[in-house]
């Protein structure tokens, strides 16, 4: 494995598997994200090299496949599989998680009623956003890609006009009144395909949805209604949705986990 180089950028996140930096690509005006899988000294060097290379390449392939099939995700700029690095497009915008968090923080009626306006007169409709999420996941599953870690943190919002959307919760009201006026103006961008795979199995797709459902319900207890909009939209926009949604019922009953034997 090539020696690690020092990354010229700001460390954003240090997960169990990868470190994520913000930097620029070629021109100082082009922001990018660098995902690095560092060497794990606990495992055999040959195994470590093999895994790092494999994961790096497969993640980049999934990103390319998504993009070429019209599912929005960061564009891959450069892959250095020997160093375990992917340089990709910087997505400017809040995650759905932060967005919903802000939305709840400013006291909007989150789970009830048809128009979601609640106490804030400038409130915006969340329903189109949920429809958009359902559609995006439906498209992803139609091209047989399993995300593997569908949480609200891995769904990002990008304004169609390429305007920045603020995600600062202290400025929540600006978020609602300001630059972006309606979530229907946002594109939903999928990020982090580190646990992704290509599969046409209904079980894998159902588990993908189940993971998202759990993430949603833990974000806010009243989010059931919102998640149902996602499922409705998924049903309309994904060809194999009927079987997957039936499978989801089973997955819900047993949880993601099997019953334990011995």
């Amino acid at each position: 494995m090539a020696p690690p180089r020092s990354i010229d950028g700001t460390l954003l996140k240090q997960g169990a598997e990868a470190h994520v930096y913000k930097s620029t690509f070629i021109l100082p005006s082009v922001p990018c994200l660098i995902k690095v899988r560092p060497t794990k000294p606990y495992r055999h060097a040959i195994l470590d090299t093999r895994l790092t290379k494999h994961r790096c390449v497969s993640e980049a392939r999934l990103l390319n496949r998504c993009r070429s099939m019209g599912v929005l995700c960061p564009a891959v700029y450069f892959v250095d599989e020997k160093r375990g690095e992917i340089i990709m497009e910087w997505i400017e915008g809040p995650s759905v998680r932060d967005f919903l968090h802000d939305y709840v923080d400013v006291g909007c009626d989150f789970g009830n009623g048809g128009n979601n306006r609640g106490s804030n007169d400038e409130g915006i409709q969340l329903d189109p956003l949920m429809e958009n999420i359902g559609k995006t996941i439906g498209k992803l599953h139609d091209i047989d890609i399993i995300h593997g870690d569908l949480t609200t943190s891995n769904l990002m919002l990008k304004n169609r006009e390429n305007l920045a959307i603020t995600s600062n919760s202290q400025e929540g009201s600006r978020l609602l009144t300001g630059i972006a006026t309606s979530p229907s103006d946002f594109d939903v961008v999928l990020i982090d395909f580190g646990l992704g795979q290509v599969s046409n199995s209904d079980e894998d797709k159902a588990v993908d949805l189940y993971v998202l459902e759990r993430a949603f319900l833990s974000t806010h207890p009243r989010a059931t209604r919102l998640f149902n909009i996602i499922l409705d939209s998924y049903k309309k926009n994904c060809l194999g949705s009927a079987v997957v949604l039936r499978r989801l019922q089973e997955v819900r009953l047993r949880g993601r986990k099997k019953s334990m034997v011995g």
Partner: protein
Amino acid sequence: MTIAIGLEGSANKLGVGIIRHTPSKPAEILSNIRHTFVSPPGEGFLPKDTAIHHRSWVVKLVKQALKESGVTVREVDCICYTKGPGMGAPLQSVAVAARTLALLWDKPLVGVNHCVGHIEMGREITGADNPVVLYVSGGNTQVIAYADQRYRIFGEALDIAIGNCLDRFARTLNISNDPAPGYNIEQMAKKGKHLIDIPYTVKGMDCSFSGILGFIDAYAGEMLSGVEKRDADSGELITPEDLCFSLQETAFAMLVEITERAMAHVGSTQVLIVGGVGCNERLQEMMGIMARDRGGSVYATDERFCIDNGIMIAHAGLLAFQTGFTTPIDESTCTQRFRTDEVFVKWRD
């Protein structure tokens, strides 16, 4: 001050332990003895034979444990037994023995979850207060963290347990089951040096071992039938020792990876390894390197507590008993399926 006797027999070990809890003092182990049913090389332990073993040894072990501990029957506060998970017939034998003792001595019964027994004993012995737990044995592979009165399973093996994978591989190579197949694999692995390419299956915080077993079994089968396998770089012959080494390096890397992911998820730096495979020093070493990188440390116990034993059942049972929990005789069943997260952990905050 309370005293419990614990009976364990969910697999091929029959264990009897006696423990004493005194408020604000560490638990005292008054006795902890075990008898193992060892099957011949190339064979696993069958439920029927294992149950016969437990039935024929349980009286002897209980008597010996009482004698060693110097405790009289009158001083014992409760009888704890393994309710599950485990193999049906061995569990039943021990449950019958526990019920008999409870009626004979007129003591309350406490049914204990085997996995919770391992976790509580590990915490007591090592002093790790709130670790991520890797529970690895012949029947279980789980990454567990405590939250809201439950030991929650964050990740697990989706098919066979790591210990099962090692045991069955040992059978293919005709490695001895005495004292344990995993122990003998560990000794052979120390002499291995070539890493062969084995499937590596991690999905998030879950993993799978059946593909590994199938692969290495087929590989070993070819070797045993006389096909020469050579290392790609050095051209040297691959030995059974190399297979043990490769199996351990690959399977343990998977376990450390899912544990690390769970630690990052819950924000913990402590990791506790329990269960029979937890005795393996290479696994402990790898886990230690990972934990150190995260600014933490690994806690592990030795074979007295890692391998199935009666004392952990006595300990976890007594913790529950002190919160007022008992198992009435007509509910004193056992079950092969009993998930760790089904137990309401009343004794922790």
